[in-house]
């Protein structure tokens, strides 16, 4: 039996795709020049980007890094690039970067905020990346007290005795709950902790300090400034607003009338007021209400206000996540015999939080950028410092360089947060829908 010669016995080898649909040309055809409308848009955009770079790049690179004043900058640039050249005066960043970073923090103590920042990365790592050993979370829990001590200085016993309040509260919870029930346990834990902080912790810290003095040179909040201030306020707000926001969201969906009314009232009140109003309350109204001479730290006041503000927004973001969960999840958790907190912890929250990640990170980024508003109440955040630097006659008139630098640093922080949230979303992608 002979085979017909015109029938192939094997597959023809694959040919390379045509040049016009593969490689760079193919990519460009597909993404940039797909049809006449897109081609025109591409060309117009390229021209716009090119024109922008043509203006900005020479300005950025025909710069002076060594001058000591704006006029000196101008002279140096003219000398090197000709009489008509104008360029950036980055020298102001060289001279003032330490001030923009640390504000008025004493320069011989810069190691403390730097160390606190490095430890912050260490404390964040186990929270952000689940592949790290879980025991590291203990360090994350201790970090707020370490950072407080490093940044503000003073006796080590202050933060330690504040920490002890949490420990005693937790002990009370563990002791009371098995015998008298959860509600009494929680109440007694709160009472014990507050009693400790208000009445006992102060004298205990003083006594311990006199027995075993371990202290760092204290630094006043007034000396905080620059990015250090923004990061301190931002991180505190971020770390504190998430748990408070979760509780508020749960409270808002609760069946208990008073809890629900309190949470709704709080959320709607805070969301109905601009942040700047709350900051004015913190800086001026409280000053008038508190007895004169009360040293209630301005930065702590601001932190509390910022935290409350973002907690209200966080609560609504998380409530959105809770509402998106199918009813069956709640019923399944009930059917398994889990109590309320177990159901929240094991079934509801992991799913609700995952749904809310983009919203949560959006709130974080907004909060971090909102920290620049403290300039209005006279705190020296990077924007406030840029005014102060311009008030120096050497640098009066510098605008773009300072704002550009500040924008770049803020962009790095916010972009990292946004990338991390995308990583987290990808990692938690478990469903098959």
């Amino acid at each position: 039996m002979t085979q017909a010669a015109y029938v192939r016995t094997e597959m023809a080898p694959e040919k390379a795709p045509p040049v016009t649909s593969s490689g760079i040309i193919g990519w460009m055809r597909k993404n940039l020049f797909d049809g006449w409308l897109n081609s025109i848009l591409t060309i117009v955009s390229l021209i716009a980007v090119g024109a922008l770079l043509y203006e900005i790049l020479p300005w950025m690179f025909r710069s002076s890094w060594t001058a000591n004043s704006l006029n000196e900058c101008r002279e140096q640039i003219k000398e090197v690039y000709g009489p008509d050249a104008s360029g950036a005066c980055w020298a102001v960043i060289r001279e003032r970067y330490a001030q923009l970073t640390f504000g008025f923090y004493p320069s011989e103590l810069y190691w403390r905020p730097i160390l606190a920042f490095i430890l912050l990365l260490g404390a964040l790592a186990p929270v952000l990346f689940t592949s790290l050993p879980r025991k590291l979370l203990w360090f994350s829990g201790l970090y707020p007290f370490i950072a407080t001590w490093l940044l503000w200085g003073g006796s080590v016993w202050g933060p330690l005795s504040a920490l002890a309040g949490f420990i005693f509260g937790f002990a009370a919870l563990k002791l009371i709950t098995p015998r008298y029930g959860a509600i009494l346990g929680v109440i007694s834990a709160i009472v014990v902790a507050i009693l400790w902080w208000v009445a006992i912790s102060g004298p205990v810290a003083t006594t311990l300090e006199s027995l075993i003095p371990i202290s760092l040179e204290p630094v006043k909040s007034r000396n905080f400034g620059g990015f250090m201030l923004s990061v301190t306020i931002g991180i505190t707000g971020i770390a504190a607003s998430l748990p408070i926001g979760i509780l508020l969201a749960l409270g808002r969906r609760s069946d208990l009338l008073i809890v629900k009314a309190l949470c709704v009232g709080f959320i709607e009140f805070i969301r109905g007021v601009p942040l700047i109003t709350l900051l004015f309350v913190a800086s001026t109204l409280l000053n008038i209400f508190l007895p004169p001479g009360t040293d209630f730290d301005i930065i702590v006041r601001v932190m509390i206000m910022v935290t409350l503000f973002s907690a209200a927004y966080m609560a609504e973001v998380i409530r959105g996540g809770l509402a998106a969960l199918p009813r069956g999840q709640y019923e399944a958790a009930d059917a398994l015999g889990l109590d309320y907190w177990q159901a929240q912890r094991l079934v509801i929250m992991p799913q609700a939080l995952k749904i809310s990640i983009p919203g949560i990170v959006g709130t974080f980024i907004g909060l971090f950028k909102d920290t620049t508003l403290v300039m209005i109440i006279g705190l020296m955040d990077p924007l406030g410092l840029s005014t102060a630097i311009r008030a120096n006659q050497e640098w009066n008139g510098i605008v773009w360089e300072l704002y550009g630098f500040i924008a770049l640093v803020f962009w790095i922080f916010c972009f990292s947060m946004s990338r991390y949230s995308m990583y987290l979303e990808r990692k938690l992608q478990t469903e098959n829908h």
Partner: protein
Amino acid sequence: MKKTVFLGALAVTGLAAGAAAAGTLDDVKARGKLNCGVTTGLAGFAAPDANGVWEGFDVGVCRAVAAAIFGDPTAVEFIPTTGKTRFTALASGEVDMLARNTTWTFTRDVDLKFEFVGINYYDGQGFMVPKSLGVSSAKELDGATVCIQTGTTTELNLADFFRSNNMSYEPVPIETNAEAQQQFLAGACDVYTTDASGLAATRATFENPGDYVILPEIISKEPLGPLVRHGDNAWGDLVRWTLNALIAAEELGITSANIDELRKGTNNPEINRILGTEGNLGEMLGLSADWAYNAIKAGGNYGELFEKNIGENTPIGLQRGLNAQWKDGGLIYAPPFR
């Protein structure tokens, strides 16, 4: 960390409010530092240098007061205040005094209950225009676009001036001085108006200062001076006479250079009284006998402070003008030390 303070403070809020009143000097002495409210930054008047040390004409007043109390011009905590927070900061006791180019007006003195202890700079609102506009008098500005900071007295002064001269103008509202500089240089407005000292400082930063002129008309009175709260006259006296000591020192020729020489004793009894070698003026203020010596030594007399921070040899380059001593045709005048 500060929870104890917070809760304790809340508890006593109702009880202790209003118990401030007298004793600012005692509070300051107990604290070991003077809390002085300054601007968040104004060229020549108050600004931190690269090391975070505050400098400027208003800062000099703070340092003189600190030196008069403690003998140490660095015993000051500078508290930056904005135009919005300055008065509450003073009223609530967050600062002991304000030296923050604040205009002395009736309502601030009477209604807001502050005490202006004197005037350390007579300012007034002026106009700056590009030379190419070909204008030599503010009367020729009919129909001009004007860059103006919103919510300030300068805005009201401007409206009054143009109305009383039957001229029209187009306001370009701006928020800060830095923004104004950019707008003015970009040609968004023909005229920039603010306090004359601010105009001079701004012009000095331009790439070609010679292309811009400051018009001769001054259309408002802006007497700037340090202020304290109502209710503690002894403290007000202390700040007032420290400022007066700086002014009298210039009049009497006491400078930071010759003060040690003069302190050994002179034939001029007023100099001797100021420097504490005769009489007991310091004791009357509740200070040591060498209070004025320390205050003048801190940064020099009024004239020296002026020359060092805003005078003709600085980039700001202000002439003394109204701020010359009364003997030289100005308004700066200290009552006698007797």
